[in-house]
């Protein structure tokens, strides 16, 4: 009887001790998680591979992930964004300069602060592989390079149309899962990543990560082999589907994440179950060295910096030496410099007004009506962000369309150009837009 009691007491005491130990371990864990992940910087490569207006949702997918990743802290200099087509300034976009990700136009993911590194026809399989492996020509600027090192965690997000073992780029070429696995192996050989998270939202997406064989890769896909990834909801005003289901629910999940949250990857695997997504999302973690339950979402999607306090300083006792004479004298000649007048704006306005006046003299009332109509239209015109470029493209097309017989005469060409000039001379950011037109291609 006494022995029973002592045993019970012993058990209780040990349980107490255990709980105490566990709690202290947790504290140490939290402090130790600081260095647990082994990475010092984060990169993101976000690729949308489809073009054409009806693939609006792929661009919206990529831009939504871009927005989340930026919100959680990764700066533009560490994001390589590749968009195969321009939906915001597409001719068929009823709301130019916007890309919406939710119906009823609730959320504009294009915004003011989007830096697209590879646009349009630059998004090719070759460029994508070059970005990943680092084999870019020497003239490539820094913003188009993936300058990761062996302590970088990289997030790679691909979306578009895919099939069993391939992903379609630009409607004319494909990247196969073997090529992708080889590219990742080349990255591993050169230690261009510490850990890599690969997310793909296409039909039969799971086939793309089947062939991976390099260590420290974690992969998520929106559908299994043989299944199609479905789109979420159409917007009747815009006329196309706005997002894909998997990315939509992924984004809902990410909206709850803030830079200091401790959500781990196991919760990410549960995003978009079959009831919501219709397809079965899959994931692959066998190549990953750490336990996914200990990997934070912000290890890949955010950019939490490791910080150390600077404990020591250097005592600089000697006073500052004056700069050598050579450097000083060069600076003395500096004078205030001004920008050259890029375009004599007032001159053009005056010229246009005189020309319109001339026009009204010949075509009396109809012309003035046309003028007033255009004037009112410009007030409700969307931000000039897009209209400038749109007209620029149009002018560009005019210049290069070989098979159009409309614009063979230089007179008609200049008339078109003049007409476009007139319509948005009335808009506020006139100089910016005109400067865009004048830029050589």
């Amino acid at each position, binding site marked *: 009887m006494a022995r029973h009691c002592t045993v019970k007491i012993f058990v209780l005491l040990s349980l107490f001790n255990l709980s105490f130990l566990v709690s202290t371990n947790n504290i140490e864990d939290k402090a*130790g998680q600081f260095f647990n992940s082994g990475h010092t910087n984060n990169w993101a490569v976000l690729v949308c591979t489809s073009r054409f207006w009806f693939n609006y949702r792929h661009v919206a997918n990529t831009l939504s992930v871009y927005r989340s990743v930026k919100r959680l*802290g990764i*700066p533009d200099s560490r994001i390589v964004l590749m968009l195969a087509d321009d939906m915001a300034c597409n001719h068929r976009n009823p709301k130019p300069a916007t890309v919406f990700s939710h119906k009823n136009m609730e959320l504009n993911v294009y915004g003011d602060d989007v830096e697209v590194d590879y646009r349009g026809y630059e998004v090719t399989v070759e460029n994508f592989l070059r970005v990943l492996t680092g084999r870019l020509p020497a003239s490539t600027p820094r913003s188009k390079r993936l300058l990761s090192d*062996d302590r970088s965690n990289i997030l790679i997000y691909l979306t578009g149309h895919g099939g069993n073992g391939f992903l379609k780029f630009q409607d004319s070429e494909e990247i196969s899962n073997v090529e992708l696995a080889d590219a990742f192996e080349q990255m591993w050989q050169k230690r261009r990543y510490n850990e890599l998270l690969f997310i793909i939202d296409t039909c039969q997406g799971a086939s793309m990560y089947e062939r991976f064989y390099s260590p420290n890769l974690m992969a998520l896909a929106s559908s299994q082999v043989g299944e199609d990834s479905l789109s979420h909801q159409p917007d009747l005003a815009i006329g196309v589907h706005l997002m894909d289901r998997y990315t939509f629910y992924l984004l809902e999940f990410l909206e709850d994440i803030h830079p200091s949250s401790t959500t781990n990857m196991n919760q990410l695997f549960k995003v978009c179950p079959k009831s919501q997504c219709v397809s079965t999302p899959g994931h692959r973690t066998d190549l990953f060295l750490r336990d996914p339950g200990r990997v934070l979402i912000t290890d890949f999607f955010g950019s939490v910096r490791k910080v*150390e306090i*600077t404990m020591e300083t250097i005592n600089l006792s000697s006073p500052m030496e004056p*700069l*050598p004479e050579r450097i000083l004298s060069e600076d003395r000649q500096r004078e205030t410099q001004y920008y050259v007048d890029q375009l004599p704006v007032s001159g053009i306005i005056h010229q246009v007004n005189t020309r319109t006046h001339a026009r009204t003299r010949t075509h009396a009332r109809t012309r003035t009506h046309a003028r007033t109509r255009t004037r009112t239209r410009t007030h409700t015109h969307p931000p000039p962000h897009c209209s400038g470029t749109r007209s620029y493209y149009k002018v560009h097309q005019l210049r290069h369309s070989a098979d159009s017989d409309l614009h063979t005469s230089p007179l008609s060409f200049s008339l078109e150009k003049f007409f476009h000039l007139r319509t948005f001379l009335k808009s506020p950011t006139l100089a910016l837009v005109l400067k865009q037109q004048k830029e050589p291609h």
Partner: protein
Amino acid sequence: MATAEVERKRGQLAALSIAVVVVLVGVPLWWRTTETYRAWLPVNQINELAELQLQLSVDVEVVFSRGTLTPEQQKKVPFTRTQEEAQKVDDDTTLRYRYESKYRTANIMEEDALKQPTAAEADLSLHTLSASPCGSVVVYVIPETSVLLPQGVDVYIGHRRTAVLRMGAPMSVGKNHKQLLAHLEPRITQVVQVMSFSHTDITAALSDRVRLSPGSKESLADSMRSFKSSPGYEITFSLLNPDPKSHRLDWDIEGAVHSYIQPLLTKLAPLANFSIDSQILYYAMLGVNPRFDSSLEAYTLNADSLAHVINPVEARLGSNAASSNPVLNFLLYVPDAHHSPLYIHDHQKQPVASNAFHSPRWGGIMVYNVNDLYGRGETPLPVNININMEKVMGVFLAQLRLMLGVQSSPAPPGFLVEPCGGAGLADWELDRLMWSRTVENVATATTTITSLAQLLDQIGNIVINDNIASQVSSTVTSLQLAVAELEAGNLGFALQYSKEAILASERAFFDPSLLHLLYFPDDQKFAIYIPLFLPMCVPILLSLIKIASEARQRRKLKQSKKD
């Protein structure tokens, strides 16, 4: 009948000759025209280099001053000893450390130098006497009774490559020179390990090749903090002024860089190229709201919120678009008038003396409080403030040293290390950096070359041009030279060759032409070839089969005729 026979024979001959032409000429031609051009690579030498066997030699000179040696021991001096230590890191990597020690007695000038009142002055005059080349160490042994070193300090390490070691009492050491060596050698090895390299340093430098589990959090932090070896670095100094209405800041960055930072970078010139620029950013806030601490009457940033400070600022910092070198950012933040003064607190809620923090492989941020430079009275805004660049550069220099890999591990007990002062870097610290960088470069270059050879072997459809082959050959040559120079102990040459090796290997690995050609699965390859070759091959095969069956029939007839 005869014509039919002739016709048939002609037909057979035609079929046979076509088959022969196809097999002898066509197939080799097709093979040669469809193979990818792969220039020859020195694969054998690459495989030899893959098994890295590095030998690092240090020249140590031990100088005995008067009073340290017994007459019996003095008879044996001068002599030379070589110590070797082999360490196996993993299957492919072995390291051998060789210490070549020369023991001699001090000459008159050195004795005079050692009679100086303080160790710092002694160090200065000793430096002028010995011409210690890069990578060598000179240890002066002084008797126990000497007052050169303060109490409790046994070893003094100066700015250059000299150290002063206080020996134990002659009674305890012994009369024999063997006993002398037994007493001295471990201590000299310890000094040399602090001043040139230790096993942990070298294995940390090999981290590209061998990802060892870190021994401690400190070593992991050390390996994560410093930048990897790169041919160039960019340093950017930024002044962040969130409140231009209140503060008009004036910093003489050019003068400060020229006086304080440039000497360090000139000393580090054999390691890498540095380019420096500076900028001033207005209305740049920190992303975190500091908390007001009424006990200090100041605003505080605690250590946990520091991690979120950097990201909002980084978006505005910018960098040089033309180069791909790693960037070190040093930010000086002057808090706005409403949040002044701002202090940084560490994990124990104590204010930090330097008021600065740094992030591994990124740079550092220092908060500079200016509210005590103008009174609470009616000073008209904006206030002109001249920033004290000495204080600022002291912090930035310390952070720069940490970022570049100058070790900050505390010295063993009993050691007195002279702080580096204005030069920014002591010579022996430079040597340490050179040792670890050379080993790192050699390891990285061998890994790059080996993995390139492996990749080219594995992925069959990459074209290898001649320029890649020449880069690879030059890498191999440079690597062999670097390893040889390391063995001989010429640190300067070894570093130079290792830099050439790593440049050539990176150029070879990242050559844009090495993109693998389009991958075609086997069934697609068949789908391409079958429509081309099958219509041609079918008649030939059929006629060959016909010829063979006829020949067999004829043989049967002949045999039956014979019987």
